């Protein structure tokens, strides 16, 4: 596993980013967010992106997970140039290849834990029975089978985040994108979540890219890279 953020080091790259740039406009002012980012993420890697607020780490995560678009540069995931995909194809690609974990869990409050986890499977051709098997497996992986009929408001923050992780896992995605997954949790819950993510990476070989401010969380990753003012820093 490479110890640098530079491209070309690891074999079997899942994510390949070259010369990626992104800026936002506020009125007539152009604000650069990412400048000439070149990065490779190997299959099965657990990568932590760290950096101060406004450094562009969430924007980078959003772009490589197909939630946002770069202004310039090349980006391929699993050998597919996702910058060429239209909105509909990109949505279908996300549904199939990316699992998301957010800081604030972002579960649908009116659905139960089971239904929240089942949600991404609605977009697949699986039968109801097959969906049930997948959901049960995902909930058992995060240790929440007994809370399957609870709504998010009946769960603790840590439990909600575990449901969110089950939702991210349930389609067996190529990549898990986690944005500050422990940012809203107490120390114990944060530790449990990181343990779970580390286990998913180690035991199931899931590729995880995680944005975090928390050095303890970053320490569970196999590789940590830092961004500052839109540029990658050497680790």
């Amino acid at each position: 596993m490479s110890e640098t953020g530079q491209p070309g080091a690891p074999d079997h790259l899942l994510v390949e980013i070259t010369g990626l740039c992104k800026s936002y406009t506020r009125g007539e002012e152009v604000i650069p967010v990412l400048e000439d980012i070149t990065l490779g993420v190997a299959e099965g890697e657990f990568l932590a992106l760290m950096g101060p607020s406004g450094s562009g780490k969430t924007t980078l995560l959003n772009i490589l997970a197909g939630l946002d678009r770069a202004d310039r540069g090349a980006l391929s995931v699993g050998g597919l140039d996702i910058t060429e995909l239209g909105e509909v194809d990109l949505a279908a690609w996300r549904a199939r290849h990316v699992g998301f974990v957010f800081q604030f869990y972002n579960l649908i409050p009116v659905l139960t834990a089971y239904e929240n986890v089942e949600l991404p499977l609605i977009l697949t051709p699986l039968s109801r029975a097959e969906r049930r098997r997948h959901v049960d497996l995902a909930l058992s992986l995060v240790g929440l089978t007994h809370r399957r009929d609870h709504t998010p408001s009946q769960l603790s923050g840590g439990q909600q985040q575990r449901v969110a992780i089950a939702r991210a896992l349930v389609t067996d995605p190529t990549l898990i994108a986690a944005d500050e997954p422990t940012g809203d949790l107490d120390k114990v819950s944060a530790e449990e979540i990181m343990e779970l993510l580390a286990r998913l990476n180690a035991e199931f070989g899931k590729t995880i890219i995680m944005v975090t401010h928390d050095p303890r969380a970053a320490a569970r990753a196999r590789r940590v890279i830092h961004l500052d003012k839109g540029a990658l820093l050497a680790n």
Partner: protein
Amino acid sequence: MFWALIHRHLWRHKLRTALTVLGMAVAILAFLLLQAVVEAWYRGVNSAADNRLVVRNAVSLTFSLPLSYLQTIRQIPGVNGFTYMSWFGGIYIDERNFFPRFAVGPGFFELHPEFVLSESERLSFHREKRACVIGKRLAEKYGWRIGDQIPIKGNIFPGDWSFVVRGIYRGAKPSTDESLMVMNFDYLNESLKKTMPVRADRVGSFVIRIAEPDQAAHISRLVDREFKNSQAETITETEKSFQLGFVAMTKALLVAIQVISVVVVLVILTVLANTMAMSARERTTEYVVLKTLGFGSGRIAILVMGESLLLALMGGALGTALAFPAGDAFVRAVGGLHDFIIPPALIGLGAAAAAGVGVMAALIPMIRVMSMSIASGLRRVG
């Protein structure tokens, strides 16, 4: 799952949803009642017989015709039945107790078979001058029976009048007016000869039956030609166009009622649109998350549209269900609207109005949610 999501979103704010459904129900109820009033107005026209002509004074309906015209009219080829009638007016106890009252000549029931009366009742009516015949609905409303006395205070024909119920007719069709009261013209005429001779021997209109309905225009011309340049020229027209003339008099009112019914729907449209805009704004996070998970804009649109449509249709269904008892209460309260019914076509129109409101109300929030980018949505979330 999609249905569950729409359904649960809908009942997330129970009070807000209940109030919106109630508002929608009241709007559709008002829409149906107002439209039904307008339809009732026109229904009398549509049920008019095509083999009857009405002869009236060419100046205005308020001017009468000499009874002697009957001798001429009955001689006109193609005429095979005739009668005459005058609007009696008057007040039964209080002006609020309005129902139509006509003094009619012999042959009225023969010419109007839609008023079904037994032979014995018909004979009793013709035999007794103070006799009157009332409609079934009128009898039920005031609890009148055969033999009861009905006092009427005259206004067009001043005096205290009293009539004895000798017959209660029923309508041959559901649309037949069962709220009329008819009395003998002879009784009125003989009284006028004594008290106001100048107004005696004059009728409001003649009703003639023709053998061939397609000869209506020709016979009308013949009748009017007979009385051209007379002291009271006539206008003869089919019963339908005669009744349309009445409707035309109230055209402005009918248009106003129709405009109000549409305005009511527009008002509820703004209320529902506001509710949907609030709901969509509150759920921005959820919609963004769904997009993140791979749900396309079309599916998100279905969620917003589905919720709005369900809300509108629930209100529409409740309003329609309430329209029947409310319509009965309305007819009882105002009286005189014997044709007031809420036909299936009007229910369809109400349902279409409700669905239209549901679709329109969802448009702006739907477009806003569909066009929101995930990245900006997530920034808002964080």
